[in-house]
């Protein structure tokens, strides 16, 4: 069984290499036949990858403990669903699953865009083939995913990983990561093919939004797991592994904004390409970090892995290749329309991108410095969560406040009189909320949160109210229909507002839980003993090492 699985992966690798070479030659010779053959090569890779995955899943279901992955992460008494998800509990298994998802998406993209974006797809097929070669090399040469177990002793999945969140979190994470490989390949393909139009951004927007959504939800589900399992001191500890999921999401947030602006205004072209490249590169940093490339992480048992040098080499190849493409095709990155003033909607989007990149830089340096100091200077440097709270925290607040400014600005330029007029209501409403909180003695930080989060919240409410009123007045629709059609007819803009409300709510939650934690110390002397605390029952079960109460205090 293991031999057959390994053989199918080797066949996938052979056809991925062929597809990469055939794409390059088809571009050079302008051969549609060779381009079609390269496309079929991608389909062959997907088929062999799927076969390998099915063989591994069959081995997990049938308890084939001769395979090391099964012996290490599964056991006979494990629930069926956890036997399946044991696949991505393993360092090689998770990479195989991620690579397989890229092959699925590559086939979907090939069928979706081959007609309308034939020129771009010739390059994108080649780039995706190279990415698939990388993943296949990792799971066959770097780590043998079908490696035979020296003994048939089963270890099973750790109790903390047998949790609903751990069924969903890796799945969504890899869906997001795989999606950004597609965005990267298509973006770089558009640049390399000299596609002198912004229509490609419309074609890739849904891929970017899908990946951004899944990665965002994956991070939230991961935080839920950390909170529920309770061993990591809350829902977010700024651990390198957590940061590895956060950084690409932050960059992707800037990317979806850039794509929207380039699509509509032909502005932020260099930003879109750079963000597509760096979002993908930062998804690759994740296996580098989780496989112990920086330091041993307590969150995943992937330390002492041979993967980091492979990942680092591939990151260097991607960065060098992208830099070369940008230098070669820089004439296609000139913005078509520049705003007359930075005090405009375009200017606000640019500023948003800058802030997001600044947050990523804070998190990046806070994450890599301890590992770098140990590797290069043999010195132990500890970066506490205080560093992240004091750098990324306030910058995030500026970003949230900016969400309230942007909708008040017009395209290209904004008159200060109009801006003042539009900002009066949100400013007054958030100021009143701030004053009420200060007077009622709830707390100074909540007052700050009310000001920072209240301003964008009231701006969004004002936009909805004005938009509905305008449709009611000009189109004669009733208020409910006018409100629904306002959102439906302007989905990118008003859908974005719904996301912004979500971010505002998360910010309020983070401020509250970070600045007003409820810490209690209780003594329970015997196993099974319990105490009642603010309506929650806390029971002591030494063998389970987890709380059984459901109500949360903070």
């Amino acid at each position, binding site marked *: 069984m293991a*031999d*057959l699985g390994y*053989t*199918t992966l*080797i*066949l996938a690798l*052979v*056809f991925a290499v*062929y*597809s990469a070479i055939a794409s390059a030659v088809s571009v050079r010779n302008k051969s*549609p*036949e*060779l*381009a*079609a*053959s390269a*496309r*079929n*090569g991608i*389909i*062959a890779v997907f*088929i*062999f990858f799927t076969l390998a995955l099915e063989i591994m899943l069959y081995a997990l279901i049938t308890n084939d403990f001769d395979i090391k992955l099964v012996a290490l992460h599964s056991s006979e008494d494990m629930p069926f669903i956890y036997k399946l998800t044991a696949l991505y509990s393993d360092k090689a298994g998770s990479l195989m699953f991620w690579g397989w998802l890229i092959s699925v998406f590559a086939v979907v993209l090939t069928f979706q865009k*081959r*007609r*309308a*974006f*034939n*020129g771009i797809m010739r390059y994108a097929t080649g780039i995706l083939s190279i990415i698939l070669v990388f993943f296949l090399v990792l799971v066959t040469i770097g780590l043998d995913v079908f490696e035979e177990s020296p003994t048939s002793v089963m270890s099973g999945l750790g109790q903390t990983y047998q949790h609903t969140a751990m069924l969903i979190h890796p799945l969504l994470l890899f869906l997001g990561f795989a999606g950004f490989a597609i965005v990267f390949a298509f973006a770089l393909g558009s640049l390399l093919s000299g*596609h002198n*139009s*912004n*229509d490609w951004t*419309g074609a890739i927007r849904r891929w970017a939004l899908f990946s951004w959504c899944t990665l965002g939800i994956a991070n939230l589900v991961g935080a839920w797991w950390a909170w529920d399992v309770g061993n990591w001191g809350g829902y977010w500890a700024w651990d390198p592994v957590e940061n590895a999921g956060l950084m690409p999401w932050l960059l992707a947030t800037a990317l979806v904004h850039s794509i929207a602006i380039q*699509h*509509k205004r032909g502005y932020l072209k260099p930003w879109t390409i750079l963000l597509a490249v760096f979002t993908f590169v930062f998804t690759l940093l994740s296996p580098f970090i989780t496989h112990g490339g920086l330091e041993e992480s307590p969150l995943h048992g992937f330390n002492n892995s041979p993967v980091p040098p492979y990942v680092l080499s591939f990151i260097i190849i991607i960065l060098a290749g992208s830099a070369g493409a940008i230098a070669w095709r820089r004439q296609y990155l000139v913005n078509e329309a520049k705003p007359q003033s930075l005090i405009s909607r375009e200017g606000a989007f640019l500023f948003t991108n800058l802030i997001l990149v600044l947050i990523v830089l804070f998190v990046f340096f806070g994450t890599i410095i301890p590992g770098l100091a140990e590797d290069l200077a043999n010195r132990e440097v500890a970066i506490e969560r205080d560093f992240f709270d004091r750098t990324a925290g306030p910058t995030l607040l500026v970003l949230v406040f900016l969400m309230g400014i942007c*909708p*008040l*600005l*017009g*395209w*290209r*330029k*904004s*008159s200060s009189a*109009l801006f003042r*007029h*539009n900002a009066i209501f949100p400013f007054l409403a958030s100021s009143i909320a701030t004053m009420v909180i200060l007077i009622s003695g709830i707390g100074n930080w909540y007052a700050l949160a009310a000001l920072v989060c209240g301003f964008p919240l009231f701006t969004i409410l004002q*936009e909805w109210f*004005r*938009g509905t009123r*305008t449709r009611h*007045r*000009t189109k004669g629709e009733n208020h409910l229909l006018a409100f629904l059609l306002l959102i439906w*007819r*302007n989905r990118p*803009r008003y859908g974005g507002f719904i996301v912004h409300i979500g971010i505002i709510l998360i910010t309020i939650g983070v401020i509250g839980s970070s600045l007003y934690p409820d810490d209690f110390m209780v003594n329970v002397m015997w196993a099974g003993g319990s105490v009642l605390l603010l309506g929650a029952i806390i029971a002591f079960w030494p063998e389970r090492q987890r709380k059984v109460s459901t109500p949360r205090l903070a």
Partner: protein
Amino acid sequence: MVYLIGVILFLGAALFVGYPLFKAESKKEATETNQETQVNQAVIRSMLEELELDYEMGNISEEDCRELDAKYRAELN
């Protein structure tokens, strides 16, 4: 046995991948220019709708609205 299965799979896939090389590609692929023009016009129309809404909501002045409206309509034609 595994090697035999591997060889059969390889040959099957090689036929599938090599098939387009012996067949003239269909000319059905739409020209990118047509697609590009259609997409660009759709984008400009959505920009005009958004501009109208922004003006009616009081987010931009009449002067700016007229200027941008003329610019977008020129691009549409």
